[in-house]
């Protein structure tokens, strides 16, 4: 799995101010990576909130979104302008998400979470194979206007893509949160997840609502894919960073959108610090160790929503 780019660390003897700067640089680049995890985790949470299932293929959705954008934008393929290709790719991802639900997942309506877990893992395998067959297995870079140029604040360097990731992620989390808590459709989605039959009685078309949320999750994955591809090269296996996004979603508690973002930021910030300060071999296990730690002590996430039914 390609590790997200971590800026080269200073090897010269460093004095106090440079150390502060370095810490800040690590922190800021961690934030940018964390936002990508957060974006994938948002996809998990959306689907979990509305269908009570977890989409283990969300990372692969992101990969497909990145490749569709690449296929539309890069000169070697379609060669469309980026600002036209990006919304188009997001729309295509939305349609793909809806179709996936319509053709495959709807057959499992009312079945247990376990079946959906296994099914989405299989879908992830198939998506990876399809992407490899279409776009090949060589790493490719998106010709994105976001990929060039950087901001400098004091001594801290931050690429355009990183800034875009941070801004877009926070905006998206805010709007999705508002959507779930303020709109009729958002409330209908929450109801559909809590009790399907009761939701039917209330006149909610549960299946269609679930299809819409899969479409929405596809669009979020498309956004995540575009931003991820702007940060670095992509290949069909980048979807595996979805496993780190699990850590983000679990830390935040699966039912909470701001929690997912917070979890993503925690994982993203811990990674560069772990690889800077921990001995080699221990650093890459930090996110997973954190994940297990959270699950052991807060089995349902930091923002738990589980209550036990009494008999």
């Amino acid at each position, binding site marked *: 799995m390609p590790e997200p780019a971590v800026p080269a660390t200073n090897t010269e003897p460093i004095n106090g101010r440079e150390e502060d700067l370095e810490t800040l640089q690590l922190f800021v680049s961690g934030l940018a990576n964390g936002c990508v995890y957060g974006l994938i985790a948002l996809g998990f949470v959306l689907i979990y909130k509305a269908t009570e299932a977890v989409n283990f293929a969300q990372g692969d959705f992101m990969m497909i979104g990145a490749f569709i954008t690449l296929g539309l934008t890069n000169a070697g393929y379609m060669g469309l302008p980026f600002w036209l290709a990006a919304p188009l790719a997001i729309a295509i991802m939305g349609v793909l998400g809806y179709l996936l639900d319509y053709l495959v997942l709807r057959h499992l309506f009312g079945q247990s979470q376990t079946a959906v877990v296994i099914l989405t*893992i299989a879908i992830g*395998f198939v998506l990876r194979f399809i992407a490899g067959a279409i776009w090949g297995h060589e790493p490719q870079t998106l010709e994105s206007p976001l990929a060039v140029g950087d901001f400098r604040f004091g001594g801290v360097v931050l690429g355009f893509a990183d800034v875009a990731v941070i801004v877009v992620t926070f905006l998206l989390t805010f709007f999705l949160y508002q959507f779930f808590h303020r709109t009729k459709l958002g409330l209908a989605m929450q109801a559909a997840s809590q009790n399907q039959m009761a939701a039917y009685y209330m006149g909610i078309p549960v299946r269609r609502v679930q299809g819409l949320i899969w479409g929405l999750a596809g669009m979020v994955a498309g956004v995540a894919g575009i931003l991820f591809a702007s940060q670095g090269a992509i290949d069909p296996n980048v979807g595996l960073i979805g496993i780190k996004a699990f850590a983000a979603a679990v830390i935040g508690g699966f039912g909470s959108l701001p929690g997912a973002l917070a979890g993503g930021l925690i994982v993203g910030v811990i990674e560069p610090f772990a690889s800077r300060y921990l001995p080699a071999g221990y650093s890459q296990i930090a996110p997973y160790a954190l994940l297990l730690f959270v699950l052991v002590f807060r089995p349902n996430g930091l923002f738990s929503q589980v209550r036990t039914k009494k008999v």
Partner: protein
Amino acid sequence: MRIQFKTSYEHDIRLFPDWWSFIVYAALIALAVTLPYLLDDFYIGEATNVLIWAIAGLGLMILTGQTGQVSLGHAAFLALGCYSTIILLEAGVPFIIAFPLAGIITGVVGMIIAIPALRMHGVYLAIATIALSILADDIIVLLAPWTNGVSGKFAPTIDLFGFQIERWSQPGRFYYLVLAVTIICTLFYRNLLRSPLGRAFAAVRDSEVSAMAMGINIARTKAVSFGISCAITGLGGALMGFYAGAFNNETFSLVISISLLMMIVIGGLGSIHGAFFGAFVIAFLPQGLSILKDSVGGGSVAIPGLETGVFGMILILFILFEPMGIYGRWMKIRIWFELFPFARKDMFKRQKSYLKTERLR
């Protein structure tokens, strides 16, 4: 059509429901025993591979099929069983002790890991076990003094009662060793299902609330299930190590965990047959694909991800059209013939069900 009259509880839990099934299984074992005389060395190797996957599958089946807990981390226990067998052998412990001991070690470790994992359910358990599978890779590298890290270890020749068993020079002997372990594990599994513990597993799977009301200690049942499952998987892992001959931290990856889970789903969750059917699919899929590729004219061009892609496709089709797996399909065909001409189309129709949130258990 055979009708079984059950007049006592003993009849209900008999190992073989009637003489006919006893004869069928005896014939199957006889066939398995004579197999080395019927097939050449290559196919004996393949048959051994099927049996090893079946053992590992039986292990996961106890946890997932019987107790209803999804684990995507069983590659970690395959690795633990494999490494502990080899390390014990290298320390001079004879195989006959080292092999079961490795199973027990794996089982105990599995049980210890299960204790915090018990508080999780459904998706959280799946995610925690994914993390476990990834951590296992890194932990093997960190424990390099024992495990040799990335350079890996080589499986030594097995010395069992003076017989030298080696996978390449005596595939027949290795096959018999694996067959013996398979039969022992299968009988153990079958007897477990007839015991109160096995019934407690099924009760926990079907409804935790009802199981609790029946006086079953959920936490203990799950922990024991995890332990037994890991022990059998560990034995499978040890045999896998001997089969591969050499292994390192990447041999038992997350993909193996996922394949194992998919294998038992394709075979049919909750049945011993399912583990064997699934093992057939997973062991012969690469061969089948390469034969197919040759016949299409693809030649020897390697297509990365083809196997997992096709495997995923097969799994999707199974979940959609035959959720009970190959075993379920086989049962349906058998019942259709047994009831002929009275089988009805809707006999196996699934009841319409609605999901409620698990956040309010």
